[in-house]
């Protein structure tokens, strides 16, 4: 397997993405929402009368942080839908499969083309989130809440793991659906486990601390490995041409 070949496949997708306005909007809107809205809410909370006490700020920031993982699971779905189902609609997979690329190179290329833009968008969102909330909360806390270990675990374990999970899920869904919209709709199912984690956190059944985040990340990584085997089994020339109807 040559990385350079996989990169070619990804680079071609990036060129195609430039023309997919809807997808680009999705790439921008979600990170903007999850980075700007928390700062705005926090800004309201610390400036109202009576203001939110300093001790109340960290739990809110931790709760917001988990949205970075949720976003990481969401954003690549749209891209994975375009990169694989879109290609299926155009029937452009067959010449690609007839070229001197291995199944692994094509799958890796497709994975990169969905993971990379999603992570860049979400990291940008993450940085804006940290800077924005730090700026708003500093006067009350007298220290910068971010960066901290919890967010480090989220940024470097949780977000990539969630992104990869989402893309692999996208590959599996793509093998069964024929239009970009249903691929994305199917992917929305992924929202539920994260919603449950969020609710558990809010109801104090779990605390969203560094340890919990690390555990969640490890679970995500395990799911990644399982999905990896399923998606590579499905992403074979024969399967694609004869069963991906």
């Amino acid at each position, binding site marked *: 397997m040559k990385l350079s070949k996989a990169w070619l496949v990804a680079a*071609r997708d990036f060129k195609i993405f430039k023309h997919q306005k809807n997808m680009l909007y999705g790439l921008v809107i979600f990170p903007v929402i999850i980075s700007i809205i928390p700062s705005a809410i926090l800004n309201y909370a610390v400036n109202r009368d009576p203001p939110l006490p300093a001790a109340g700020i960290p739990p809110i920031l931790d709760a917001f942080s988990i949205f970075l993982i949720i976003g990481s699971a969401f954003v690549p779905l749209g891209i994975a839908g375009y990169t694989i189902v879109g290609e299926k609609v155009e*029937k452009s*997979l067959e010449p690609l499969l*007839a070229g001197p690329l291995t199944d692994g190179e094509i799958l890796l290329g497709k994975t990169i083309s969905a993971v990379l833009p999603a992570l860049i968008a979400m990291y940008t969102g993450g940085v804006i989130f940290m800077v924005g909330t730090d700026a708003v909360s500093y006067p009350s806390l007298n220290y910068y809440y971010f960066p901290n270990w919890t967010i480090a675990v989220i940024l470097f374990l949780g977000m990539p793991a969630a992104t990869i999970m989402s893309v692999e899920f996208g590959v599996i869904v793509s093998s069964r659906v024929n239009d970009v919209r249903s691929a994305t709709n199917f992917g929305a199912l992924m929202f539920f486990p994260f919603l449950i984690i969020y609710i558990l956190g809010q109801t104090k059944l779990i605390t969203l601390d560094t340890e919990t985040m690390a555990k969640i990340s490890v679970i995500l990584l395990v799911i990644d490995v399982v999905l990896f085997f399923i998606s590579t089994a499905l992403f074979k020339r024969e399967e694609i041409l004869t069963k991906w109807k």
Partner: protein
Amino acid sequence: MIEIDNLSKKFGDLTAVDSISMNINEGEVFGFLGPNGAGKTTTVRMLCTLISKTSGNARISGYNIGDKDDSLKIRKIIGLVPDNVGLSEHLSAYDNLEFFARVHDLSKTERKERIQYFLEMLGLWDKRNVSVGTFSKGMKQKLAIARALIHDPQVLFLDEPTANLDPEAAKTVRDFILDLKKQKKTIFLNTHNLDEAQRICDRIGILNTKLVSIGTPKDLEDAVRVRKTVIELEQVTDSVLKSVQKLSLPNLDVEGNTITFDTIDSGSKNWPIVEAIVHAGGHVNIVKVVGSTLEDVYLKLVGENQ
């Protein structure tokens, strides 16, 4: 160049390709003819290592299609234009070619030269930066062939390249294939257009799950050569009809004012028949003997193997 040996493909219980054997020589344009569902696409996909074979074997340039390492080598030396062109609609003509040139490891200067060569030849150079989605079907088909040729493959597989094209676009694509033929490219052409096969191909194989027949267009015609005598009359009256029916002619067919039957003894026994018609009061306008066409051969062979 291509050696096929008892190659079969089954999809579950359905046999799509049944034990075909044939060889295609270097520099040959081979036409693979057959009705819908005959297994043409399935055969090409097996040869291009896109789907696995069920049994038998095939080799391209000595590489085995069933072998994993050989598969990659085969894909380096072939070009495929699938039945649905499969271009990236959102990419420009140039980028479509550029991508495949890169996939095939062409150097930067080679890429530039070859892309320009093809786009100029196809009259698409001015549109090189336009999204392929805006192209006509004929332009797309030509571009897809250029894409398949970008790395100068040893064998080019074309799956029904003129289907769904209007006559003019079909002609430009056909002319392009004829150009390639002059350059001695080995071409495997799937088609159900007999006329096209006859005009372009050196040899034709007729497929209907099994390989029904194979040979030059002329071989095939000769193999089932039936010449027909056609007699056109002013009018086929009852008495004329009775008189010809009495002669018990092979495959007699009366349609409107025309009587047709299989020619006996190369036409040297036509005169007694004409005489009988005249005797019965018929006014004969034209008597002619016509040869069988490839279409007759095709329909006959496919019909026999239904």
